[in-house]
């Protein structure tokens, strides 16, 4: 079975259109904050009235991916569309607000309007509701590489005939406390800015018309304990091994950082220089912009080294 990428959507600090963002990155532009994004611009629903920034990002990216795939809401050609949301931090802003209300004013000061939006799967639930997607719905937590876990799970759902298409969404919202903590403990390189946004990929089985390409191989992720293990784990990752065996040399290598991989002739792309660190969202941006940069029939290897949990890779063909 071939899994195809039929639609993509992004929300990035450099814009919401893939081509425009790619051009701005090529010009050397850099940004870390997303301006106001109102998901109602893409899809109208009362469900979005009180939702968080992370949900606005997720719904905006998801709606673009659905539109990009040429689907309309409730499209009967895809009766069962699943949603898998991959998050690294979840809705921190509302969680902090709600917790602060309780700490400062006791239970009576805590707004019941905020609490439901603090739940990690709120974004996936809103996407299903506003886009009418009634297939399997799941939210995964993890470090940056969780976006690839979500792609692997989507492949499972398609392969096992649990869904006709699966929308994989990875949203992330910035939080000052987290940035402060990460800086203080040197969990990230100083030159990398903390970013936010979302990416969405709509995957379908081979009978669908491929729009962006196909997923050749996607790993479930391998845990690492010491940084010294990372090169070997990465080299042994099925997607990386597949890339090494390609008859046509790899043209694009989209990396999350300083992965030591040698693919002579492959153009190395690291979007973090332009778009910063957006954790799970960033990993799916790597896939999107790797594909955007590739020519037809080119293979793109995308690798991700998560902060403290796993290394993973995905091989896609434009």
């Amino acid at each position, binding site marked *: 079975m071939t899994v195809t990428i039929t639609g993509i959507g992004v929300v990035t600090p450099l814009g919401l259109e893939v081509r425009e963002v790619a051009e701005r990155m090529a010009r050397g532009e850099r940004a870390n904050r997303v301006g106001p994004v109102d998901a109602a611009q893409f899809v109208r629903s009362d469900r979005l009235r009180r939702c968080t920034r992370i949900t606005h990002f997720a719904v905006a990216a998801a709606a673009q991916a659905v539109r990009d795939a040429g689907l309309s809401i409730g499209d009967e050609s895809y009766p069962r569309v699943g949603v898998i949301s991959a998050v690294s931090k979840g809705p921190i802003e509302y969680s902090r607000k709600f917790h*602060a209300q309780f700490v400062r004013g006791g239970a009576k000061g805590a707004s019941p309007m905020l609490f439901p939006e603090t739940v990690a799967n709120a974004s996936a639930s809103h996407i299903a509701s506003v886009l009418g997607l009634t297939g399997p719905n799941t939210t995964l937590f993890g470090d940056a590489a969780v976006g690839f876990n979500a792609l692997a799970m989507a492949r499972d759902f398609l392969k096992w005939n649990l869904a006709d298409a699966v929308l994989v969404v990875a949203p992330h919202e910035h939080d000052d406390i987290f940035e402060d903590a990460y800086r203080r403990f040197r969990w990230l390189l100083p030159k990398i800015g903390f970013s936010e946004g979302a990416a969405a990929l709509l995957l379908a089985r081979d009978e669908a018309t491929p729009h962006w390409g196909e997923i050749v191989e996607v790993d479930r992720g391998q845990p690492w304990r010491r940084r010294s293990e990372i090169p070997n784990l990465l080299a042994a990752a099925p997607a990386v091994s597949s890339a090494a065996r390609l008859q046509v040399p790899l043209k694009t290598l989209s990396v999350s950082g300083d992965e030591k991989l040698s693919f002579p002739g492959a153009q190395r792309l690291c979007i973090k220089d332009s778009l910063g660190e957006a954790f799970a969202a960033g990993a799916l941006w790597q896939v999107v912009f790797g594909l955007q940069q590739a020519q037809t029939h080119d293979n793109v290897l995308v690798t991700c080294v998560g902060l403290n949990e796993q290394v993973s890779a995905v091989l896609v063909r434009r």
Partner: protein
Amino acid sequence: MVDGGGSETMNARVVVTGMGVVTGCGTGQTALRDALRTGRSSVRPMELFDVSTCRCQTAAQVGTLENSSDRIPRKAWRRLDRVSKMLLTAAQEALEEARLTSGPIHAPLVLGSSGGGIRSGELYHRALLQNQSRRHAATWLSDYLAQQQPLHVQRFFDVTGPILTLANACASSANAIGYSAQLIAHGEADCVIAGGYDALCELIFVGFDSLMAATPTLCRPFDKRRDGMVLGEGAAVLVLETFERASARHADILAEIRGYGQSIDTHHITQPHPEGDGAYAAMRLACEMAGVEASEIDYINAHGTATPQNDAMEAKAIRRLLGVRAADVPVSSTKAITGHTVGAAGAVEAVISILALKNQFVPPNVNFESPDEGCALNVPAAAQPRSLRTVLSNSFGFGGLNASLLFSLP
């Protein structure tokens, strides 16, 4: 509404060979089984943090946990957060029962949690808000990362496969077990360590309280006077394997996972579909996957939160599934005993369902005194000895998520 995603039969037999559990009832299967048999509730006044401004003042809290594993150094144990201790204790019991304690375990670790290490995040946030010492900030922040608790399991028990943490609110760990069973059934793994964990924390406690979903009185699932849930905490871990692998290594087979169904109501972020369409779909899909008729179900461990909306819709869905047998098949919620353990509930109740099968009894729905016409089911207030062969367990969560697991004796 919804279907959730097609049903399929299991391509291979998936069996449970080890279980571990920690709840307010105590540590281990025996403590839980005894509490279920006697109907002893673990709900007590809240001691973990100040809830004096809340409507609800009680919770089923886990007591102090001692390190029972020689794989975890004493110093490391002392530094662990509460929820990690719960998860590790449950994992230790499950791996021991499955006899997987020596050498690396090559298996995916698929866990469900709603809050993960959120309590550690709260401690950090509170220290910031109140200008308190942040001496423990590094530990709090690293424990707050959702993947930290599964990482501890990997590290201490030498589990070498990928980690997957599902955060599907109160359906999290039922989904984790269901997905794990599918991984095995479809030949993607021959062994998976699955389960769930959640510790009590201010955000979730106050959150349910603010929604008036937590009881200021007693947790009374399916009772006419029910007025809300009581929260709990805990962890449960199950070792799942192919029947062939378990047989080949002469492992004790505790139960078989026959079916799994999931669905989503697109009705409301916190409220279930009033007709229980999503709940019904999940149960029906689990039966279809198992190739089991609803008439073959001997007991249903209900989600049964004791909120007016949940129990009414779940009762409707169960009656729709069971038809005329609804008056006979026992249905109980064990949340008045264990508290609602949120993301761990699906795994805790999977253990309860298997304990019921193994010990041939129906766990009680304690505090059930006044039947509600809107929840016309066979609800036993006390434990009952009964011949059980097939048991269904329900878990529903915020966001409209529904999951059902179907277990049978091997």
